[in-house]
């Protein structure tokens, strides 16, 4: 059996990871696909942990853990859901639009092999952005059910 101390320790470690990720983001941040996935993964991870811990909470729970749970909930509901998440959605939509327009306006005649293959990489990036957008939209739908 995992002790309450172990659970508390694990929660604090996961909180530190989330806090570091959130604090590194500014309105000017241009997050890579990898960074976006990592951030949402940590949000979902912590949300699940909180849901599980709250089902079991009793008077034996350390006060520091209860305080950390509350602090994490505030960070997720205020800072992430109301600020960072909409910012990521908007940037993804704009980026997909710009890349699409750019690829469509590209002259399709007289391209060298290298030109075609470099352009194919941009199409691959576009597909990755679109997949990420779908994932982020799924998160957003989840929020509207809360």
């Amino acid at each position, binding site marked *: 059996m995992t002790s309450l101390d172990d659970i508390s320790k694990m929660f604090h470690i996961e909180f530190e990871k989330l806090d570091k990720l959130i604090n590194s983001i500014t309105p000017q941040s241009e997050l890579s696909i990898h960074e976006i996935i990592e951030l949402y993964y940590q949000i979902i991870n912590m949300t699940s942990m909180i849901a599980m811990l709250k089902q079991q909470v009793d008077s034996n729970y350390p006060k520091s853990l209860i305080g950390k749970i509350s602090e994490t909930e505030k960070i997720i509901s205020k800072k992430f859901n109301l600020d960072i998440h909409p910012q990521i959605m908007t940037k993804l939509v704009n980026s997909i639009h710009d890349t*699409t327009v750019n*690829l*469509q306006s590209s002259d399709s005649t007289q391209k060298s*092999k290298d030109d*075609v*293959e470099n*352009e*194919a990489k941009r*199409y691959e990036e*576009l597909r990755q952005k679109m997949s990420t957008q779908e994932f982020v939209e799924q998160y957003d739908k989840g929020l509207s059910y809360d």
Partner: protein
Amino acid sequence: MIEELAKNLVNLKQEFTKVYVGTSHIQEVIPIHKSKMFPIDENHLQLLHHFAKNNPIYYNFYEQKILEIPCIVYEGDINKYWLNSIQYGSSHAPFSPTWIMSAYVSMLFAKDFGFLEIIDIGSGDGRIAYCAKILNLESYSIEIDEMLVNLQKPLSTILNFHPHCSDAVQFDYSLLNLQKPVFFIGGLAQMGGIELATGILKKISLILKNVGWVFAGTYSLKYNSDPKNNAGWGTFMDEHNLKHIQSILLPTVWTFHESDATPYIFTQANE
């Protein structure tokens, strides 16, 4: 003999994936000459190469021996067709073709089973209908995406495979005066193929009985399997009383990086 040809083509593809060092979006091979592994009419082979060399989706080609068979490797890119199809929501599934050699082999089967006309649904660049024409079968390609139909038009000047820009579910098949047709549905059951096939089957059943159907399937774990199997089409076949004739594996662009080839399920309406 055709089964052997199909197996040899799958082996050729498997070897090609090992030796291919390029970075193109799509790639495929066609043997240059008739051989023991590929006992194909030389004129037919020339027409297959002619299709590839005149098709703007391919931007590069070169000779390479694969399994000791001299072949031409064709490198291409279909990204702009993908972007067009998803942007306008015009199609059930984005354009991703079967190999030209696979189109030819599947037409050999269709001819061997006694079908007289080929109707390729969601025909992309028209390669299946083109290959049918090589074998003197009457052929029609139905494609909803105008950009792809415009790609087919110059290719249909080599052999006229009758490109039609239309929604296959709305198309009036009675105009074609079909006698014993086979319909090719290239989209996977799990990617809109069922809806497409259902719509066409309902229309066709009003005008013809003795109809063949060929479905592209998958055994990939990425997709939900069908409880009645047949590569995703089993339940559909049962519901519409379609008799299984043959399943055959052939290489396609979308399985290039996978160890499995694409199963094509040949069926016929039960009398």
